[in-house]
């Protein structure tokens, strides 16, 4: 069966879509150039995952989503993500391609925090968005999918925290694909200005078991000098969604960026998380967990590049594979010349629960500087029979013992998810996927 490789939308469509949204000229320009680039550029180059037969072209692009008046209107699945006391929190709920709910406290507004959907931000803060949008983070011309992202962008949020502002409460966005065929070309742009602090958590949810669609997500995070950003995510697209997720961090001097990613998609997924430690004494932890099941194939890359002196990067990836799921885990620590006294550490571990599953951990260290410390650990294995023996010797059943070992295996990342309700929900998603 030949897989359609051309988009079902033409340049005229993109032009009209941009005009309909009253987008600034600079952005319409990016879209149109990106459209042409998307025709020419190759797909992302993956060493070990074959994506030739994946669906990247069958989807609906522009699907409206109704506003909600009350949180009671939301399905249970979405409500549990938001938890109690939701009216007082700073939240955006995106439904299909529209914002259904948005709230930012007056206090944060007064401090100059901007938290709104990306189209509104382009209108109201055009210069600020233009300064960061696909410039120094992810480039439009990286591959066919980044170009398509810019051309077809249909959703997104912009979060800006001004200098010295500390946002105490976590900020949360739920992207809810209510329509089973709606594609999500979603852009998250997070700028934490100098010495600011913010915690951001996002959830992606869909229900399309049968219907096919695509998610093409680009997150660009800027932690400017002295800023502290904590970024948590739970990706939970259903089986029918083919996902391309590209999360990119740029970290300034004395700044910190902490990633905690729950990569729980049920469909085929390419997920790339790259952090560039630009400033001296910058720091990043990139933590990610995944559970693969069914026939899904996933390709994960976690990369930290060190440019600043005495920069520290720690990658931790833990994956559990069952059924006939296949996953590749690339861990890349790159130390550029001049990034003296840097430390690049990584750990990738895969736990196999069935004979038909495949898992592959590829640790890579690329070092162009003498004065560094670096290390890696990688393993692919089964649940340790001695651990099971120990737990069972206390009366715990085999099933429960396995459950404890698996949860324990994933916990170093799960416990880093900043919002407790999201953490709890991630544990439930893991529970649901493993059993």
């Amino acid at each position, binding site marked *: 069966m030949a897989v359609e490789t051309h988009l079902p939308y033409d340049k005229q469509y993109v032009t009209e879509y941009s005009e309909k949204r009253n987008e600034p000229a600079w952005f319409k320009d990016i879209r149109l150039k990106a459209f042409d680039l998307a025709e020419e550029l190759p797909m992302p180059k993956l060493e070990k995952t074959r994506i030739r037969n994946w669906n990247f072209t069958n989807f609906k692009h522009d699907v409206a989503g109704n506003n909600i008046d009350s949180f009671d209107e939301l399905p249970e699945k979405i409500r549990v993500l938001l938890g109690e006391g939701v009216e007082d929190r700073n939240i955006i709920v995106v439904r299909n391609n529209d914002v259904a709910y948005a709230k930012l406290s007056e206090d944060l507004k007064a401090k100059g925090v901007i938290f709104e959907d990306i189209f509104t931000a382009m209108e109201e803060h055009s210069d600020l968005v233009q300064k960061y949008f696909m410039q120094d983070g992810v480039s439009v011309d990286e591959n066919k999918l980044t170009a398509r992202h810019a051309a077809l962008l249909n959703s997104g949020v912009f979060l800006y925290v001004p200098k010295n502002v500390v946002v105490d409460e976590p900020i949360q966005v739920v992207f809810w694909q209510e329509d089973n065929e709606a594609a999500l070309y979603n852009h998250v742009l997070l700028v934490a200005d100098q010495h600011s602090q913010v915690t951001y958590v996002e959830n992606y949810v869909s229900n399309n078991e049968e219907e096919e669609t695509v998610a093409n997500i680009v997150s660009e995070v800027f932690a400017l000098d002295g800023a502290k950003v904590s970024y948590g995510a739970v990706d939970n697209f259903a089986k029918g969604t083919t996902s391309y997720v590209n999360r990119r961090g740029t970290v300034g001097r004395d700044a910190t960026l902490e990633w905690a990613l729950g990569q729980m998609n049920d469909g085929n997924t390419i997920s790339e998380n790259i952090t560039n430690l630009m400033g001296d004494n910058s720091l990043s932890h990139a933590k990610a967990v995944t559970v693969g099941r069914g026939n899904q194939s996933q390709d994960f890359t976690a990369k930290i590049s060190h440019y600043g002196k005495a920069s520290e990067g720690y990658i931790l990836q833990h994956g559990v594979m069952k059924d006939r799921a296949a996953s590749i885990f690339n861990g890349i620590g790159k130390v550029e010349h001049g990034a003296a006294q840097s430390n690049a550490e990584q750990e990738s571990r895969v736990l196999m629960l069935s004979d038909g599953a495949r898992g592959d951990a590829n640790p890579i260290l690329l070092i162009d500087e003498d004065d560094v410390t670096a290390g890696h650990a990688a393993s692919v294995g089964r649940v340790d029979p*001695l651990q099971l*023996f120990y737990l*069972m*010797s206390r009366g715990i059943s085999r099933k429960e013992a396995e459950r*404890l*070992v698996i949860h324990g295996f*994933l916990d170093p990342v799960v416990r880093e998810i900043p919002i407790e309700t999201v953490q709890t929900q991630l544990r439930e998603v893991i529970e649901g996927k493993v059993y």
Partner: protein
Amino acid sequence: MAGSTLEIKDLHVEIEGEEILKGVNLTINGGEFHAVMGPNGTGKSTLASAIMGHPKYEVTKGQVLLDGEDVLEMEVDERAQAGLFLAMQYPSEISGVTNSDFLRSSINAQREEGDEIPLMKFIKEMDATMDSLEIDKNMAQRYLNEGFSGGEKKRNEILQLMMLKPAIGILDEIDSGLDIDALKVVSNGINQMRDEKFGCLIITHYQRLLDYITPDHVHVMMQGRVVKSGGPELAHRLEAEGYDWIKEELGIDDETVGQKA
């Protein structure tokens, strides 16, 4: 009721095709403390592990019965639920599972569904037991055995023993790696378990543990069998004279079994 009875009859055990136990016979009644002694490499730990169902050990012949029930037919968790407990020489480290959660799951696994131990009761009991074993309180929230020192692991095994209150406790070299103060604390905990019901099988190759825990019966293992049994006086004689006199008496040249010389 005078507690449970564990009967080990003509037990033969192999590891990776090599026979380590060559017909062990032993009966432990509720209320009795038995010590199994012997030099290294004589099969003592194999006995403990095989009774509990360690995956590496294969029983090729013989029986293990708990109150007449065939233990060897049971899954490992069923053996625990039937009343057996093994304090391990090398307990596994399990990341991401806190000591406290593990202990509570273990206790609840032995109770009926709907009759789980109330959280407050559990915490109170755990705190008190940890105090009596002089265990640092933060150990409850640390991951199970992860990064524990040798002594902490041993105390943690005894903590579990005391909380789970099995019918028969098997303690595999619980004294190894403990300094004298820790040994006293751990022995004190084990002695607290002593009543007319609790049966205990203590495996050790140091006589010093028996200075603190007085066994009712002492057995010596060599070459994968129990070669001599007696009362507490046997332990004293071993302490004073070592094992050579037994080897001479029985005409044993090399007391070890299997590859480990």
